[in-house]
């Protein structure tokens, strides 16, 4: 096993917690059962790594197998790093009928045309997600496996998610995607975050959305038992707030976003005689909301009454439009793009 493979292996093993080591190695499907049993996952990581390397040596496993392990790891733990969402535009008529085989052939052929040295690995999952791992080289250098780009695409949808995406590779990657998916342009979806599942759920609307319905069966959960008179008066009020929060941000387990950024390009409007008022220049500012689970926090604020309703469209646009980066200009009283 060469130096690059060892470095990658070390990186992956360090990241995986001890409890998950066995499971990950099993789904890797490269070591025999006896070899797996011979490895002790409770050992300190450096010792475990040494043993693992010698087992790999027994089977003559090299770089190719290690990159497979890395991909297996990322597929099982997709919520790390910074994923960015993009949307393919201008679909051709046959975009809807592209099969996985066609996609794979066209994508690989396109990139291999442009790069003499490139390593592409592709896998299609049960839920229709296509995972692609690309290690970039060029005409002279071999592929650099230490800085791979990961791309996740759901066929028959226009959504693509990138991880570790370098701008110099953009035009080539876009072109390959266009040819493979039969679209002609791509735009940034203004959505990024740590959790791939959250980004996917937001753009594909797979979280529990709440729409206004005739029969409101939503009831307040976690109602603390209070004096019955207070409860009676409070119940309708609380239910209305809960409904408002759910309509704006969803119900149940919400997609996990860490931040929302609003870039202001508006004019300062105040009624004091500040010098800021006179300027014709734009008042540039950035408003950033951060949280370990942003949508949950917003939901809680509205449902408990900390924030008064109705929910401003600036905040509900996060779920409605599936974005967490907005540029606000003067012309439209709300979020643009």
């Amino acid at each position, binding site marked *: 096993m060469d130096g690059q493979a060892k470095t990658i292996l070390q990186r992956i093993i360090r990241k995986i917690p001890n409890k998950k080591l066995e499971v990950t190695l099993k789904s890797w499907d490269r070591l025999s059962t006896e070899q797996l049993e011979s490895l002790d996952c409770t050992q300190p990581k450096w010792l475990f790594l040494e043993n693992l390397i010698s087992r790999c040596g027994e089977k003559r496993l090299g770089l190719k197998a290690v990159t497979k392990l890395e991909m297996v790891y990322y597929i099982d733990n997709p919520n790390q790093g910074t994923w960015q969402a993009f949307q393919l535009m201008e679909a051709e008529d046959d975009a*809807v*009928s592209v099969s996985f085989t066609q996609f794979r052939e066209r994508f690989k052929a396109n990139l291999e045309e442009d790069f003499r040295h490139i390593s592409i690995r592709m896998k299609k999952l049960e839920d*229709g997600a296509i995972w692609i791992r690309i290690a970039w080289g060029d005409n002279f250098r071999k592929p650099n496996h230490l800085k791979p780009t990961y791309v996740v695409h*759901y*066929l028959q949808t226009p959504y693509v998610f990138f991880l570790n995406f370098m701008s110099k590779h953009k035009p080539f990657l876009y072109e390959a995607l266009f040819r493979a998916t039969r679209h002609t342009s791509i735009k940034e979806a203004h959505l990024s975050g740590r959790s791939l599942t959250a980004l996917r759920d937001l753009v*594909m*609307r797979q979280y529990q959305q709440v*729409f206004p319905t005739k029969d409101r069966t939503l009831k307040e959960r976690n109602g603390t038992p209070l004096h019955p008179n207070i409860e009676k008066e409070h119940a309708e009020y609380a239910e209305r707030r809960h409904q408002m929060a759910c309509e704006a941000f969803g119900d149940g387990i919400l997609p996990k976003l860490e931040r929302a950024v609003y870039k202001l390009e508006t004019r300062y409007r105040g009624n004091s005689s500040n010098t800021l008022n006179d300027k014709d220049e734009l008042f540039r500012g950035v408003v950033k909301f951060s949280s370990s689970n942003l949508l949950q926090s917003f939901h809680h604020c509205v449902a408990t009454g900390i924030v008064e309703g109705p929910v401003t469209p600036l905040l509900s646009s996060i779920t*409605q439009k599936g974005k967490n980066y907005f540029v606000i200009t003067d012309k439209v009283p709300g979020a643009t793009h």
Partner: protein
Amino acid sequence: MMLERAGTRRTERPQHSRLEELRNAIATLHVKRDRLRIETVAVKNLKQKMDQGMPLEDHDYGDLLQLEKALLTSRHMKLKDLQSAHSLIAGYDLMECNQGKSVCVSLHTAFEGVYVETYNMEVDLTRTVQISRHNIPPYVPLEMIAKQTLQTDFKGFLQTLSLHLNALAGRKQQISLIMELGTVKVIERNQLCNFLILMCKAQEESETVLCTLEYGDLTRYLPTRVTIESENTTLVESQQWRKNRLLLLEFPVHCALLTMRKMGSIA
């Protein structure tokens, strides 16, 4: 003094005529009131007679016709309004929200008599008709359908969308019903469920047969093209399998497969 008295007599005359006018008006209204009183009493009596089931006399029939006519006219108007409202929303579950600025549509899907999924859509009506949010999956070509009909024909838009969603629900259900059969394996499928490859075992020689179903029309739950492949080319070209191919084209997949199993074509 003479002038003054003459003056007062002249102002009295307009007042006098005004008084006459008012007295006449009172008289007319009295007559009208009396007439209405008589009519009300007559209708009340008629109603009482009808309620008690007593026989009607000749002079009652005139009043009865009047009453019926009035009732029918009001009912007709109410039904006309209801009908135009119903046709406007194409019979779908529509709910007003946001103080009339937008409506929320619920689209239900069903297959073979079973409700499958419900999709919702909020449509903004302020300036132009725009979809503000929805929970329709992204592989349904919503933007394309909206581009074609949303602005010009709301009812048509809802109907086309409903066709797509119902067909999708039908295709999805068929796949889960195939998996219940057990002996047929789904090798490839996609999210829109418009491309399907099945693997079955031919009964006689236990040969594997691959059936590829392509659904070119997204508004239908039946395939537009079926291809049968197997290593045994004579089997594929046999009359039995030609019939099977037609079955797959004309019936929902799980029904066709069940028939094929009953006829002994597949395991």
